[in-house]
């Protein structure tokens, strides 16, 4: 059978009865069995659920019914997203045995659209990390370069797609956790605007930043998955009723004369020379496509990481208060209730999570709130304002996704600040609530992938997808 399935080839094969949904699912499980022991992308497989869904799709084919948009498409779901009856750990020991009693809205919508969920993917614990090395279940290896990290925190989702173990995947992005692993594994990966996709069933890390979004083999597939999961959900009051546009239709629009802003601040010190070469070649390609490029300034860019690590850790310290060994997860018994909380949390959380809980509690604590948390919220307003002003002049903004390509496993684990700086170009759009995609932009030395990031104004998903698609079609991945 085909090696590189896409959403359209899966649907066509099923509709033409060249392959059944069950056969396609089985083929993916075979690949997972062969490849996963090495790359560790999947933590839990749900074969029973997948085959039951595949059989429903095959029954539709047999009955001559019209096929839904993702009929038989094998997907991987990040383990921070709840799946009813299927173990969901957030890659943490504190949720080691957690079986959610409900499905996330995104999961319900994907299955209603015919998708076959293969299993749950590895990630940094509670999505806190940029390399997937902070998983309690071992790191993920980058399928493109096995001695390197896949990026993070959605490293399992990115690796699963890049290794052809799934046709597409859901990841979650708080400061770059979809886009950065997408870039490092060489696949397109997108977060929609804040409020575009329901987070109901997403296990919270930082609620003013967390988003669910797709990773896939091509931009058209990213658009197809986003189309299904986007839109208002009464179970998430932060999801908006803003109409969901037709993304497939948007992809076809020409990009000639599209105004693209290139922010100088994203090409400064700390940027790998190989990344710079590829991104500059990418920008040259956009010029060839007839786009109008202009230099812009986003003057508060340099403050984004500091702002992000105040806001994200503060929110995390609050969200993670729920893990107390009472309702779910393992419990470490103490001689009082408080001692039980303390011991359970001390034993259940990994180092990065504890570090962030301490930092987040500190920046919210009496005497430090104004100096850190309030200050962070104010600088966040300035960062968002930078983008609003820029989008008065340009349609989209193009930057590198990450300052560095995939780095070696173990290289940054003992230096949290260096690890945080890997998110320097992605956190800005997270703080501002904007849609952003990373699209492949060549490989350094023909090996390590580079990502080109496109930001749009809030709810400007169509422009973002349109440009990314045109860039991909023009050969961006082969630069």
């Amino acid at each position: 059978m085909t090696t590189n399935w896409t959403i359209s080839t899966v649907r066509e094969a099923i509709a033409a009865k060249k392959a059944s949904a069950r056969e396609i699912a089985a083929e993916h499980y075979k690949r997972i069995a062969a490849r996963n022991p090495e790359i560790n992308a999947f933590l839990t497989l749900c074969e029973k659920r997948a085959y039951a869904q595949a059989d429903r799709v095959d029954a539709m084919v047999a009955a001559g019914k019209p096929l839904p948009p993702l009929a038989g498409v094998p997907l991987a779901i990040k383990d921070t997203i709840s799946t009813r009856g299927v173990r969901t750990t957030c890659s943490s020991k504190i949720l080691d045995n957690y079986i959610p009693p409900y499905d996330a809205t995104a999961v319900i919508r994907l299955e209603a659209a015919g998708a076959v969920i293969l299993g749950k993917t590895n990630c940094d614990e509670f999505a806190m990390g940029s390399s997937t090395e902070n998983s309690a279940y071992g790191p993920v290896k980058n399928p493109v370069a096995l001695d390197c990290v896949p990026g993070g925190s959605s490293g399992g989702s990115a690796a699963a797609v890049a290794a052809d173990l799934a046709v597409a995947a859901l990841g979650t992005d708080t400061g770059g956790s979809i886009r950065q692993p997408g870039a490092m594994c060489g696949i397109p990966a997108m977060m929609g605007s804040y409020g575009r996709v329901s987070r109901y069933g997403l296990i919270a890390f930082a609620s003013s930043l967390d988003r669910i979004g797709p990773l896939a083999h091509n931009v058209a597939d990213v658009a197809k998955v986003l189309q299904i999961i986007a839109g208002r959900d009464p179970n998430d009051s932060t999801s908006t009723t803003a109409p969901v546009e037709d993304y497939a239709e948007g992809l076809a629009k020409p990009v000639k004369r599209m105004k693209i802003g290139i922010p100088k601040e994203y090409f400064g010190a700390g940027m790998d020379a190989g990344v710079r070469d590829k991104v500059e070649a990418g920008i040259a390609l956009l010029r060839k496509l007839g786009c109008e490029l202009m230099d812009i300034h986003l003057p508060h860019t340099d403050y984004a990481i500091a702002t992000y690590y105040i806001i994200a850790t503060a929110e995390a310290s609050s969200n993670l208060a729920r893990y107390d060994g009472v309702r779910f997860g393992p419990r470490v018994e103490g001689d009082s209730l408080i001692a039980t909380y303390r011991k359970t949390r001390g034993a259940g959380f990994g180092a990065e999570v504890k570090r962030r809980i301490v930092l987040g509690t500190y920046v919210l604590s009496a005497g430090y709130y104004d100096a850190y948390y309030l200050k962070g919220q104010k600088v966040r307003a300035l960062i968002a304002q930078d983008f609003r002003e820029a989008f008065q002049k340009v349609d989209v903004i193009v930057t590198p996704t990450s300052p560095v390509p995939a780095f070696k496993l173990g290289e940054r684990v003992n230096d949290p600040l260096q690890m945080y700086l890997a998110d320097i170009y992605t956190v800005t759009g997270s703080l501002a609530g904007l849609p952003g995609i990373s699209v492949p932009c060549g490989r350094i030395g023909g090996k390590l992938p580079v990502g080109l990031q496109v930001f749009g104004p809030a709810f400007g998903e169509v422009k973002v997808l349109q440009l990314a698609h045109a860039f991909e079609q023009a050969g961006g991945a082969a630069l």
Partner: protein
Amino acid sequence: MKISREDVLRVAELAYLDLGEAELETYRAQIDEILEYIGKLNELDTSKVEPMAQVLADEQTADATLREDLVVPCAVADDVLAHAPDPEPPYFRVPKVIER
């Protein structure tokens, strides 16, 4: 030094988080470095800036009003209790809270 050993102990107390002796010093040093880095925000005068307390602009949330308060079936108690560390249906059992 931005954060002391006592600060970390106090914060861990607030967060109900047991930290071992080695962890305590490692995190203190790492968080100290992070706070040092975060200090760069003080280069900015934000005295006239309104804090950004929510992401969506008013026009994007105006229609996202609260949903109607309807009673819907939610029969998950058995599922939830089945995986609890110490269930005593219909309760979660915890160590003694009140001394008699």
